């Protein structure tokens, strides 16, 4: 009996130590797992529970540098935001020749976000670099929960009127600016004009139309060419968010979800469901399927997302010169403007050279003397488009782009960005996205739209209370 109790205790220890690790926010304690399991196994073989290997490695963002002229920064995309940072380093070196920017490259934006969560949770910021780059939706939550992790940019001398208001609305907390905008999240609706032409349409026929008309055209395109008119990663479905923004509305109202009993929202979800059922909208299972299979794999005649999707579109070189961009359809048929994603640079609480960091950000990304040089190179080398209006006056922005049928897409995107309505944001943005995505799946599979939205709303409210 005693032995039984002991083995029970050891088995339980093996189980809980994994979860204790999870709950505490550190990786799982592998050594003790194996130790406990080994003793409980009568055969004395090396034993390991299957999920005991489930550990997530925490990325070390490298901390700060001891050199007074060196700033460290973490970023994740070697084809996109890292060239932008390199461009800024070069631009700032023109006035500060000794300046150096150490860029720590991580593999995904979630690496930075996890590291911030861990640093904020543990109160140990020593691994945070001077400046971090992450997605705009997170900053409100981070400043609220980990206020010590951030330094405001209020006295940096950046002229905030020079930027798109919608972009700044994310990183402004209680009137204080925290983020230096890097890229532009303005959504584009890109179409394959050759395929539209095949079906008797031009880019103007899909500009400023209603979603119903858009679905009609989509069905025709699907029938004649077999291609969908749009695809989306349904695991992180941004369509409802962007489509609502194009209507000038938010999924949130006064800090509460605004989806159940919201007629506009119901119509939008209906468009997505109908599109998916008719094969006009291709809902992919994950991100890779969305980018590699549907867009690069040439299965769609249209792409609707933040303009950072453009480098992905350009990877299908066979379609060069056949794309053009325009605005978003709406329910009323007016031209819609939306934004999705985009990131900003934030100075962390671990930065002791705050003055240098502020100078650097103001001079480069903040619209200072080096802004044009920074943004021109960022666009040329990384396809990063600014929200800074004055920097977009440069020649590089006015050039036509061969891939997009010589359309001057960059200045068009910056211009579109100034029209994007500012809408209410919420910390629970990603929970909303997940639950609404589930609701859409259920409606496609035959669920009732009203009760599904009702469920999503109540589930979301449940998650928001603590």
């Amino acid at each position, binding site marked *: 009996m005693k032995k039984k109790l002991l083995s029970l205790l050891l*088995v339980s220890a093996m189980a*809980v130590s994994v979860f204790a690790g999870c709950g505490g926010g550190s990786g799982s304690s592998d*050594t003790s797992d194996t130790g406990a399991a080994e003793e409980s196994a*009568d055969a004395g073989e090396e034993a390991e529970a*299957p999920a005991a290997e489930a550990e997530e490695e925490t990325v070390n963002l490298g901390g700060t540098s001891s050199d007074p002229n060196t700033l460290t920064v973490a970023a994740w995309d070697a084809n996109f935001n890292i060239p932008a940072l390199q461009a800024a380093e070069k631009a700032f070196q023109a006035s500060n020749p000794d300046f150096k920017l150490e860029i720590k490259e991580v593999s995904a934006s979630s690496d930075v976000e996890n590291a911030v969560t861990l640093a*904020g949770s543990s109160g140990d910021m020593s691994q945070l670099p001077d400046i971090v780059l992450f997605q705009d939706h997170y900053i409100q939550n981070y400043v609220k929960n980990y206020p010590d992790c951030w330094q405001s940019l209020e006295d940096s001398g950046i002229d905030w009127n020079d930027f798109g208001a919608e972009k700044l609305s994310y990183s402004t907390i209680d009137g204080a600016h925290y983020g230096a905008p890097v890229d532009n999240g303005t959504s584009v609706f890109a179409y394959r004009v050759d395929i539209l032409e095949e079906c008797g349409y031009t880019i103007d026929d899909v500009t400023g139309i209603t979603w119903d008309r858009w679905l009609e055209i989509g069905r025709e395109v699907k029938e004649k060419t077999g291609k969908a008119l749009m695809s989306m990663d349904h695991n992180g479905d941004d369509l409802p968010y962007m489509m609502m923004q194009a209507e000038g509305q938010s999924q949130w109202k006064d800090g509460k979800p605004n989806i159940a009993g919201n007629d506009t929202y119901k119509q939008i979800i209906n468009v997505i469901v109908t599109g998916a059922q008719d094969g006009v909208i291709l809902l992919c*299972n994950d991100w890779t399927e969305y980018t590699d299979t549907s867009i690069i794999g040439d299965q769609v005649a249209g792409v609707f997302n933040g303009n950072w999707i453009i480098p992905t579109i350009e990877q299908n070189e066979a379609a060069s010169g056949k794309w053009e961009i325009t605005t978003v359809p709406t329910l009323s048929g007016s031209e819609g403007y939306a934004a999705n994603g985009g990131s900003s640079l934030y100075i962390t609480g671990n930065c002791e050279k705050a003055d240098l960091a502020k100078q650097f950000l103001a001079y480069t990304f903040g619209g200072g003397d080096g802004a044009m040089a920074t943004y021109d190179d960022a666009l040329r080398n990384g396809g990063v488009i600014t929200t800074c209006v004055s920097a977009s006056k440069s020649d590089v922005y006015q050039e036509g782009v061969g891939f997009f049928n010589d359309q001057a897409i960059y200045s068009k995107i910056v211009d579109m960005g100034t029209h994007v309505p500012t809408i209410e944001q919420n910390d629970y943005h990603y*929970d909303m996205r997940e639950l609404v995505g589930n609701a859409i799946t259920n409606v496609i599979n035959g669920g009732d739209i009203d009760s599904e939205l009702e469920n999503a709303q109540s589930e979301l409210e*449940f998650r928001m209370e*603590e």
Partner: protein
Amino acid sequence: MNKKSGVTRKQEVWGWAFLAPATILIFVMSFWPMIQAFIMSLKKGPAANMVWQEPLFKNYTRILQDKTFLTSMGNTFLYLIIEVPIMLILAILLAQILNNRDLKFRGGFRTMVFMPCAVSLVSYALIFKSLFATQGLINSALMHLHIISENINWLGTTGTARAVIIMGLIWRWTGYNMVFYLAGLQNIEYSVYEAAKIDGANGWKTFWGITVPLLRPVIVMTFIMSINGTLQLFDESVNLTNGGPSNSTITMSHYIWNQSLGVGVAKFGYASALAFVVFIMVGILAFINLKVGDTRD
């Protein structure tokens, strides 16, 4: 008399001295975090400055109303009920076959069956994912064989997504359990089988009359480990399907992860409470298993 107790004492001191480092390490690295996790499970708010939950056990009562967690629990138990018996039966059969002395290339076959265990959980999940993608290898093979006329969305449909996860689990863990059975089988004297043969027992009878009873301790152990492992299933859910479609493949651990470090707003207190509930479940199941499996008292 006096001298003897001195020796015993000396032995005891040395025994404890040898045990102490491991005991202290287990306590500090394993039991102490458990206690801290329990304290955390009674709190709420951002991890940097957590406050006590009001009422104190609210995180636990909240679990009962949490539909997503109940869904994840249902999914996990579904995997458990379907996958564990299939896997263990397959493992014991394979072990029986590979224990045959007349079989040629035994070592080669054993290595092959065990090989999947050398593959990292994440990589095998990603490989399964690309195999079962809508434009993946399985679909195009089935299309060319004219078995299906349209690509199947394996990972985007509830039933098939669950089936893929179960298939993956069986592929990955059968060989692992087989090794335990093989070791157990090799401890059974060959003469026992010869005696049974002389007495006229056929293969089936030998299996049920000799192999299974003699392997009982190993079977109990593999059962506990498989149950424990399945209840903590994480990698497959995260990497293969990301819990989708519509949370129909999400596991409990994946949900706990989502509540702490995944997308959305981190709730470490609630996640710890969930973890403790899973801990209690594993404890209960392991206890039942030990009770059923042990015939000694």
